[in-house]
């Protein structure tokens, strides 16, 4: 296939980020926005350096990552299991469809009083919100993935009398895997968003609480610095899931195109 010249993805990605940094530096410098509300990149970087020198920052970062990781893990495991089971048993799918649709749009943030009631500002509160929001992301993707199984592949497995487990393991799972990855990538950032939001609103320890404090204190550059940290976490997390994806989905059409000639 004749494709356009292919650049180094890492270089191109860095160029993209550099472009963003440049824009943020220029917007206030050129007076397009008031720099008291959007400080230039250099000032944000300075504030970030100041933050990075404090122990509180690292403690908060750790707290956020911890809540994120645990919450995401629970959500992914639960979402995948539920998705495979519900997706492969038509009756279950029909039975649960309405309930899923009912529960899914209830925002985690609306559950904050409930979470605080149960866990105060402990980790548990953040976890409830993170799990609740991330779970649906995974579940829905897995449901779509299960529905995408190629009937001929499925029949092949059935004709060779694959056990139910064998069909799940060897047909359902590989078909759903690309969807699971999208689900995990969606869930990973939703989990991060919710972890930070929960900290922000409830005040559980973590980056979100630091952001809230910075906002309340009118420390604009510091607030942006912390936002940047959140975004950077997202970039790193995506990098990790991408790597896993490339490894596990080498056979898939979407990846094949990248590797083959």
């Amino acid at each position: 296939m004749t494709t356009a010249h292919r650049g180094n993805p890492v270089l191109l990605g860095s160029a993209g980020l550099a472009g963003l940094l440049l824009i943020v530096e220029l917007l206030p410098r050129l007076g397009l926005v008031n720099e008291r509300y959007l400080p230039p990149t250099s000032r944000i970087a300075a504030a970030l350096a100041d933050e990075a020198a404090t122990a509180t920052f690292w403690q908060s970062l750790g707290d956020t990552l911890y809540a994120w990781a645990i919450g995401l893990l629970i959500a992914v495991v639960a979402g995948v299991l539920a998705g495979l089971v519900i997706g492969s048993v038509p009756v279950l799918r029909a039975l649960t469809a309405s309930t899923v649709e009912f529960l899914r749009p209830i925002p985690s943030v609306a559950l904050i009083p409930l979470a605080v009631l149960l866990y105060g500002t402990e980790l548990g509160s953040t976890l409830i919100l993170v799990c609740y929001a991330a779970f649906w992301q995974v579940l829905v993707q897995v449901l779509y993935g299960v529905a995408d199984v190629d009937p001929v592949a499925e029949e092949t497995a059935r004709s060779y009398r694959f056990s139910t487990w064998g069909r799940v393991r060897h047909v359902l799972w590989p078909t759903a895997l690309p969807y699971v990855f999208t689900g995990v990538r969606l869930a990973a950032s939703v989990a991060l968003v919710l972890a930070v939001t929960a900290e922000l609103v409830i005040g559980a320890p973590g980056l979100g609480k630091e952001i809230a404090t910075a906002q309340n204190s009118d420390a604009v550059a510091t607030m942006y610095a912390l936002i940047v940290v959140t975004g950077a976490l997202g970039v790193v997390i995506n990098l990790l899931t991408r790597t896993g994806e490339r490894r596990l989905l080498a056979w898939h059409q979407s990846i094949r195109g990248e590797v083959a000639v």
Partner: protein
Amino acid sequence: GSDKGSGDSGGSSGGVDNVTVGVIPIIDVAPIYLGQSKGFFKTRNIELKMEAGQGGAAIVPGVVSNQFQFGFSNLTSLMIAQTKNVPIKAVAAGVSTTGVQGKDFGAVVVKGASPIKTAKDLAGKKISVNTLKNIGDTVTRESVRVAGGDPSKIEFVEMPFPNMPVALDKGDIDAAWVVEPQLSTIKAAGGREVASTFVDTDPKLTIAAYFTSQKLLADKPDLVKRFTEAMNESLTYADAHPDEVRQILSTYTKIDDKARAQVVLPKWPIEINKASVQKLAELGTTDGIFASAPDLDKLLP
């Protein structure tokens, strides 16, 4: 409640009570941090831990469910809770106005070039408050009323304090009801104060209080008593040592050094001024914030 963590009021070891207090990380709660560092709580066998929440939404349920043993909230919110029979009770004063016109820690401000000159001009304007149907609109209306304007025509919009300087600057709002440190920020950018709303309402207005749950009050009256004592000592100390207050701010807020030296500090009397709260209650009832008139005897100590 859970048995892990310090959240449990039963968590006393060797006669020391582990106490968690839900606070908003703003200037108002400086005394409790100062008192903690001075050891006012420790000497009364209280091991203190602060949890920061964004306002009553998180703190009140935390106190009711005993996740927090005490909480900090403004009195209007506490009175709303009281009218809904939320089982809580105020145990110590939180923060009060300085009582000085033009030199309070909260005010309504406008842009320097705004045609609004006095509180009277605020009638019919768009004013931001941090929470609708709460203390902000009550006291702002009162300022307008006192100045001879028509408070019924004000359009209040809700937005977080940190966003108000931007909104004011861009002209999204005509005026902002803000507290420190945003008040200083706006003034430094050329903003102009048009009403010292707390002072207009009552020069001795008590704005917020520390509270606990009815249940803790019944189960551990002694703990509550010790907390109140420690709190009062902290308030008194903070009132007397503004420099130390400005210092302690650096530990739990991110207000930069310059702003910390400049912000107007509130007053921290130990008495909850009942008359002023009564006024707040009446104003709120007039404005329709309370479904029924709050019963202050049930709420205040």
